C-alpha cells in the first residue's frame, strides 16, 4: 500500500506535552500542576441553562455565525468591558473554542509562503496551525528579561517583505505575561508601518491581575487590521463546552465565516444557549474566580522566593513560568526528574517553543491545599538537586 499521509502533516512535530502526559498518567496519586484549564466547575446557573436547552429540544444547528442572541450578548459584553464596537450581524463568528478561531483566522489570511510572526513561548497550536495554512512560522523568541512582553525592536527584527500576520496572545499561556497600553501602542506602530494584520488571542483577558485588560484593537487605527479572538473556556470555566468567537471587520469576517460554514457548520447549540446565561449573569463568577487565582498566584511567587527559584512576576492567566536553568538540565529532563522523585507534574517550557527551555510552566488552577503540598515537594526536590551539584 502507498503511504497516504500528506507530507505537510508528517512534518508537524507532536506536542511536547503529550510525552509528559503519558508518563504522568501512569502514576497514581500524582500531584499535577500541569493543567491548562480552570479548576472551578462551570457556574451552576450556566450549566442549568444548558440542561434547560436540552430539555426544550434546542438541539438543531444554529446559523453559521452563531445564535443571534449570543452574538448580540458577546458584542454588548465586548463594548461594555473593552469599549470596542462590533456589529453582531457582520463582524462576529461563534466558533468551537478559541482554537477553531485561530485556525480559521490563519486560513483566511495566509497564502502559501506568507510569513506569520508570533512571540514564543506561546500556546502549542500556533506553529502547527500556521503550517497547516501553508504559512511560514517565524517565532520571535522572548525572555524573562522583557517579562515575555513583545518589544517593537524584536518585532521589527523578525519582519521581512513576506510578513503578513502578527499572531499574539496576552495574557499569555504559558508565561502569564501581560502587555499594557504603552507596550501595545509601540507594537501597533510597527504593525501599521509594515502594513500587517494582527490576530490577537485574548482568551485569558478576564484573568489580568494588574488593572483592566487592554486589547491591541483598542489602539486607534488598529481595529480595522485586527482579528480579535476570545471565548468562554477560561473566563467562565467552560473548557469542555468548546465555545469561542472571533471578531473582525466585516470584509475580513466574511472569509472566516466561509471556512467556518463549510468546515464546521455551527458551534454546539446547547453550549451557545448556556453561554448566553454566562454573559448575562456571569460577572460575579468571574470576580470570584479571579480573586481566588490572584491569591494563589501570590502564594506561588512567595514560595519561589523562599526556594530562591527565579521567576518574573506574571500578572495574567493562571500560570507562572519559573527559571530552572541553574540545574543544568533541559526543561523536559527537569520535569521528568521532578515527576519521578516527587510525583509532581509540571510542563516543560520547551513544549511552548525552544526558547522556553530554561523554564517550566506551573499552573495555579488548583486549590491552595494542593499548591501547598506541591510547593513543599518542589522545594525538597530543588534542595536535593542543589546538594547534588555542590
Amino acid at each position, binding site marked *: 500500500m502507498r503511504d497516504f499521509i500528506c507530507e505537510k502533516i508528517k512534518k508537524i512535530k507532536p506536542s511536547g506535552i503529550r510525552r509528559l*502526559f503519558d508518563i504522568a498518567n501512569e502514576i497514581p496519586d500524582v500531584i499535577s500542576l500541569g493543567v491548562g484549564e480552570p479548576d472551578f466547575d462551570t457556574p451552576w446557573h450556566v450549566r442549568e441553562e444548558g440542561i434547560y436547552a436540552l430539555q426544550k429540544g434546542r438541539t438543531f444547528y444554529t446559523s453559521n455565525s452563531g445564535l443571534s442572541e449570543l452574538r448580540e450578548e458577546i458584542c454588548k459584553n465586548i463594548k461594555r468591558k473593552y469599549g470596542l464596537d462590533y456589529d453582531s450581524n457582520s463582524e462576529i463568528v461563534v466558533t468551537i473554542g478559541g482554537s477553531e478561531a485561530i485556525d480559521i483566522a490563519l486560513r483566511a489570511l495566509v497564502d502559501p509562503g506568507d510569513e506569520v510572526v508570533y512571540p514564543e513561548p506561546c500556546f502549542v497550536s500556533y506553529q502547527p496551525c500556521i503550517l497547516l495554512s501553508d504559512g511560514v512560522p517565524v517565532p520571535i523568541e522572548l525572555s524573562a528579561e522583557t517579562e515575555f512582553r513583545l518589544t517593537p525592536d524584536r518585532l521589527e527584527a523578525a519582519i521581512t517583505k513576506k510578513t503578513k500576520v502578527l499572531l499574539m496572545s496576552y495574557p499569555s499561556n504559558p508565561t502569564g505575561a501581560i502587555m499594557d497600553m504603552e507596550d501595545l501602542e509601540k507594537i501597533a506602530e510597527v504593525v501599521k508601518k509594515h502594513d500587517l494584520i494582527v490576530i490577537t488571542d485574548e482568551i485569558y483577558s478576564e484573568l489580568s491581575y494588574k488593572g483592566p485588560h487592554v486589547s491591541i484593537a483598542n489602539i486607534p487605527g488598529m481595529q480595522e487590521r485586527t482579528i480579535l479572538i476570545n471565548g468562554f473556556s477560561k473566563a467562565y470555566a467552560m473548557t469542555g463546552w468548546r465555545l469561542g468567537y472571533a471578531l473582525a471587520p466585516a470584509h475580513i469576517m466574511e472569509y472566516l465565516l466561509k471556512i467556518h460554514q463549510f468546515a464546521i457548520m455551527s458551534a454546539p447549540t446547547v453550549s451557545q444557549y448556556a453561554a448566553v446565561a454566562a454573559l448575562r449573569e456571569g460577572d460575579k463568577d468571574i470576580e470570584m474566580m479571579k480573586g481566588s487565582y490572584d491569591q494563589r498566584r501570590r502564594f506561588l511567587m512567595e514560595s519561589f522566593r523562599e526556594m530562591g527559584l527565579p521567576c518574573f512576576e506574571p500578572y495574567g492567566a493562571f500560570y507562572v513560568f519559573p527559571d530552572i536553568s541553574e540545574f543544568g538540565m533541559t526543561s523536559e529532563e527537569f520535569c521528568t526528574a521532578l515527576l519521578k522523585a516527587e510525583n509532581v*507534574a509540571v510542563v516543560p517550557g520547551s513544549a511552548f517553543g525552544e526558547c522556553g527551555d530554561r523554564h517550566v510552566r506551573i499552573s495555579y488552577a488548583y486549590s491552595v491545599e494542593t499548591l501547598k503540598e506541591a510547593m513543599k515537594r518542589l522545594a525538597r526536590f530543588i534542595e536535593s538537586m542543589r546538594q547534588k551539584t555542590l
Partner: protein
Amino acid sequence: MEKEIRKKILEILEKDARLSAKDIASMLGYEAGEIAAEIESMEKESLICGYHAFVNWDKTDDDRISALIELKVTPQRGNGFDKIAEKIYQFPEVESLYLMSGGYDFTVMLKKATMKEIALFVSSKLAIIDEVQSTATHIVLVRYKDHGTSFIEPHKDLRMVVTP
C-alpha cells in the same frame, strides 16, 4: 483598607481555618506579622469566634440525629427577644439559635442527640419556658450540604493530568 483586608482574611479562614498567618500573608501580599496581628485582634473582638473541624457524622457509626425546632414566643416588654434567647442558648444542647422573620420567632438547631434526648429536651426544657407559646420539632433526614460543602459527592478533579 483595614476593613478590606479583614474581609479577605475572614473569607479565606472561613473556607480553610488551617491556613497559617504566613500562608494567608503570602496569598494577600502582606507580611506574616501583620496578618497574625489582624487575626489576633479579630479573635479578641469576637469577629472570629472559633475554629472547628467540619465533621460528617453520617460517615461514622454515630446514630444520633439532628433536630431543628421552630419556636413561637411572647416577647417581653422592654427586653424584646434577647432575654428569651439567652434562656435558650445557655443550654449546652443548643447548637445554634436564630431569631427569624416570618411565621415563627426562633430557629433552634440542636446538637446531635438520640430521639429520646431530643424529646426530653423539648418537653422538659424548651416548652416549659414561660414565654414559649409553641414548638414544632423537625428531624433532619439527610444532610446534603452544610457550610458551603457538599456532603454527598466529595470533590474530585475530573481534569486530565496534563493539558495545553
